[in-house]
């Protein structure tokens, strides 16, 4: 199994470190030729405007769209979740490129500025009973789920912070910044 981490910008090294701990040697994906080698792809946290722009310039939007959910499983964390969503609100002026693969609506910077970044427990029954430590950094919010897309993670107030659509997974928080690798293990099985 070949696992890639999109390495255009963001905390891709943190994802790579977790994967190595799990015995998987990841490929850093910056160009289409690296993308062609991988069967799973993590889109890390970072700035969705920056990553979207670089995906466009280096012609990776279409190659990802064509394979997504079929022979390419994808997990997006935070900025990655924004790139996966079919509808993004509070985009930058003039709009921004996204992959638009999962049937969900996501609101950017939904909790406010950096001062409103927070940590809170996340319930995610598909990985076990014990809640995750969720790290939310200028996080987006999943505001609506469409057909075929199911909620798989919640904050204590019931708001959805993780969603799954077949072999596509989105989390608005950062498991790669904690020692808990259960979401990475889930993704490797997806």
């Amino acid at each position: 199994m070949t696992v890639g981490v999109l390495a255009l910008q963001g905390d891709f090294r943190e994802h790579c470190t977790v994967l190595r701990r799990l015995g998987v040697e990841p490929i850093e994906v910056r160009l289409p030729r690296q993308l062609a080698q991988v069967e799973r792809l993590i889109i890390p946290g970072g700035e969705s405007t920056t990553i979207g722009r670089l995906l466009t310039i280096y012609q990776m939007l279409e190659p990802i769209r064509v394979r997504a959910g079929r022979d390419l499983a994808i997990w997006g964390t935070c900025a990655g979740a924004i790139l996966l969503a079919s509808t993004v609100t509070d985009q930058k002026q003039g709009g921004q490129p996204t992959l638009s693969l999962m049937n969900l609506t996501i609101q950017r910077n939904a909790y406010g500025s950096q001062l409103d970044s927070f940590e809170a427990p996340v319930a995610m029954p598909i990985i076990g009973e014990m809640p995750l430590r969720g790290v939310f950094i200028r996080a987006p919010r999943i505001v609506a789920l469409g057909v075929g897309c199911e909620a798989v993670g919640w904050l204590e107030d019931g708001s959805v912070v993780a969603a799954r659509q077949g072999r596509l997974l989105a989390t608005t928080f950062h498991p790669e910044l904690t020692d808990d690798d259960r979401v990475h293990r889930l993704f490797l099985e997806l």
Partner: protein
Amino acid sequence: MEKATWTTKVGLAQMLKGGVIMDVVTPEQARIAEEAGAVAVMALERVPADIRAQGGVARMSDPELILAIKQAVTIPVMAKARIGHFVEAQVLEAIGVDYIDESEVLTPADEEHHINKHKFRVPFVCGCRDLGEALRRIAEGAAMLRTKGEAGTGNVVEAVRHARAVYREIRRLQSMNEDELFTYAKQIQAPYELVKQVAAEGKLPVVNFAAGGIATPADAALLMQLGVDGIFVGSGIFKSGDPVKRARAIVEATTHYNDPEIIAEVSKGLGEAMVGINIDQIPTEQLMARRGW
């Protein structure tokens, strides 16, 4: 729910890695930076090259300008406070900036004390020239570092010197035993616990960007290959002939820093770079990197 934890402070810097943070002086420039792929902007009244040229006391920017820039973009907005000026920092926190740069580019307000950054909910980035300075700033609560370089010169030599110093000292630490670490911590005037941690992990506990003099895509890639996590470009973009093209090129070179063919491609036809200054022609008292202790 816990807000503004150490993990979220350091975490935002981790999300900026592999990216370019650009100095901007108007909302329009901020939009250009965001459009070009900047991961964040530094909101300022004057870029360092102008501060250098105009002289006088350089202070925190007008909050109204910072707020206008915040309105214009969706990416994080940083702003500078003077070294030791904790009230400027309080003001910047009050208007909700995403990161504060306690910066030697502004005129220092306190020649002995840096800001006690643990007291703030907003995270801080600070400049450093070597490992000792880096660890002193972390001890005071900095959640992100940048090597200082020499701002407003368009000359990368000091940025290279400072990045090399930091990573050379980290490599040296890794070969030392505990007895030597105690002495080394004293020599570089850094807290022993942090020295021990860096020796064990072989890396800084927070993200470190390069700053001060980066003017071309190749400059950015050079610093990335030396080991920094990302790039600050101050005067280098909006003091050049074609800011839009140069901004995009520096973003791409920062991502593909190990790919000379791509760096060559993006370096073509960028127009004039900012006019550079040789460091030895700057009077010693005007060197910004010497501010801070």
